[in-house]
């Protein structure tokens, strides 16, 4: 089986306890935050090549399907704007919240976190790298959904550039939430369930026009971070968008993103060492 003889090496390697009374040996290098974040991000991004369909396409099909359904119900105007914005941000919720929660839940349950925990890498690098990659997976789907929506409902595409801000900020907020849920859930099935619920909430509260809903649901809608991404995006379809409100909504996303990513990093630390 082995070509290695099991005899003692020359040089008295097996001499008795030789560590006693010696200075501690030099430690290997620590991986710095930025390079290791880039390495994790690149590795996670490459997973899209293997799992292309679930990571990139499923969410898009779902959102386009919803818009086609809603076309029979909604007749242009503010409601159409809400539907298109909601469906676009739903792609972000599906991938960054739901799929990332599932990914971290499974990684934690299967012992895959041990791999990272036995490398000298800052916890923030693992969480931010994975969250960044999942936010990136949402880019093609969100853009395709937004453009398709504009064509379906005849909305102007003048301000679609706002997606450059909406995707990363809503992505950060929802990916942070997804990562935290996945890492905190005691069992992987729970992580999956929480991710699904989060996405369903984003679907129901984001896509359906708000003014037809009861007070309680509207309050729940205000609690969901994806709502602010939807609102910011929907405002830009108007004749003269209120940029102040757009910025305000995006700022909420940014704050939620920072907080939820910090919680996710804390959860990762907690999950890695038991």
């Amino acid at each position, binding site marked *: *089986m*082995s*070509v*290695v003889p*099991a*005899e*003692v*090496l020359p*040089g008295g*390697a*097996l*001499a*008795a*306890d*030789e*560590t*006693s009374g*010696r*200075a*501690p*040996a030099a*430690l*290997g*290098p*620590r*991986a*710095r935050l930025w*390079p*290791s974040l880039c*390495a*994790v991000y*690149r*590795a996670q991004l*490459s*997973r899209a*090549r*293997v*799992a292309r369909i679930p990571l990139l396409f499923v969410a898009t099909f779902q959102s386009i399907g919803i818009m086609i359904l809603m076309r029979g119900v909604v007749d242009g105007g503010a409601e159409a704007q809400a539907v298109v914005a909601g469906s676009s941000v739903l792609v972000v919720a599906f991938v960054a919240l739901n799929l990332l929660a599932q990914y971290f839940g*499974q*990684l934690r349950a*299967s*012992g*895959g*976190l*041990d*791999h*990272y*925990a*036995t*490398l*000298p*890498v800052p916890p923030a*690098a693992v969480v931010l790298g994975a969250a960044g990659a999942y936010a990136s997976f949402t880019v093609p789907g969100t853009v395709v959904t937004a453009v398709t929506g504009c064509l379906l409902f005849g909305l102007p595409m003048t301000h679609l550039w706002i997606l450059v801000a909406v995707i990363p900020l809503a992505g950060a907020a929802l990916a942070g939430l997804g990562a935290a849920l996945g890492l905190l859930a005691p069992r992987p099935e729970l992580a999956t369930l929480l991710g699904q619920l989060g996405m369903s909430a984003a679907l129901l509260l984001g896509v359906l026009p708000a003014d037809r809903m009861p007070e309680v649901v509207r309050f729940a809608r205000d609690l969901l971070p994806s709502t602010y991404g939807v609102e910011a995006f929907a405002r830009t379809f108007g004749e003269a968008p209120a940029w102040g409100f757009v910025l305000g909504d995006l700022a909420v996303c940014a704050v939620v993103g920072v907080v939820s990513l910090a919680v996710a990093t804390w959860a990762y630390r907690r999950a*890695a*060492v*038991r």
Partner: protein
Amino acid sequence: MCAVRGLTKTYPAVRGRRGAPGTPALRATDDVRLDIAQGEIFGLLGPNGAGKTTLVRQLTGLMRPDSGSVEILGHDIVCHPERAARILAYLGQESSALDELTVSLAAETTGRLRGLDARRARAERDAVLDELGLAPIAGRPLKKLSGGQRRLACFASALVGERPLLVLDEPTTGMDPVARRAVWSAVDRRRAERGTTVLLVTHNVIEAETVLDRVAVLDRGRVIACDTPSGLKERVAGEVRVELLWRERAPLEVPEVAALQDRALESGRRWTLRLAPEEARTVVATVTGGAAFAALDDFTLATPSLEDVYLALGGAAQKGLVKA
């Protein structure tokens, strides 16, 4: 280089719920004491559930012990578990963190996360993949590889970004002989050139006998023996293992055979006996002549292996160790 004293970890009892019985508290490692010298290939041998992986997780800083100390190269791992990652490379049993990456990217990313800069990580990745013969499949995702190849790819990741201590949890599971040889020669090269120390978890007796310098035998969380494989075997040198394989069932109507039944370890049609050489000769003479012979399918006589050592030391699991 690595000193473990009084290491104890108890998993708390789980209360039963409706339909699911509770489990009592389990002492997974019980007052474990080990000393591993530099350049040694040290093995932890024991059946499933003996506490090998729990022990290793405490040595790698993945789990906090309830009490006891772990010192590796002068660093206290219980107080500073984060230092373990900068001293050792760990190959766990799970590959789920790397499954969807290509072999090449898995090795490179691991090297980067071990603190190498991009150029070094790529150079070491290429060297390790060539050394282990993984270059032809470097572009394929781990998920699409066979179990043995995937294991070898994970082993490659563990080698990128050199560490003075390698902790390998059943590294050769599922590997073909060529891959196993690649693993052991890579380990041996590092030991000869850099004095790398290896802590190996195994439940494979043959592998333990051929590659280990010293082995600690674990049983229900306790180290029940620690010596060189040959030193351990000397403890049962006075005994011979006799295996009898019956055609259909043991001929218990023969009084000599019936008398042996109490001392035999039965598994199906196979009886395993550990006997003094003199006794073994008598048993063989009995079963190869007379009425018993008609019922005998096959028999073997063998010198003791580490499995016999384990059983002689009072190991609880009677059939826990793998002989392959």
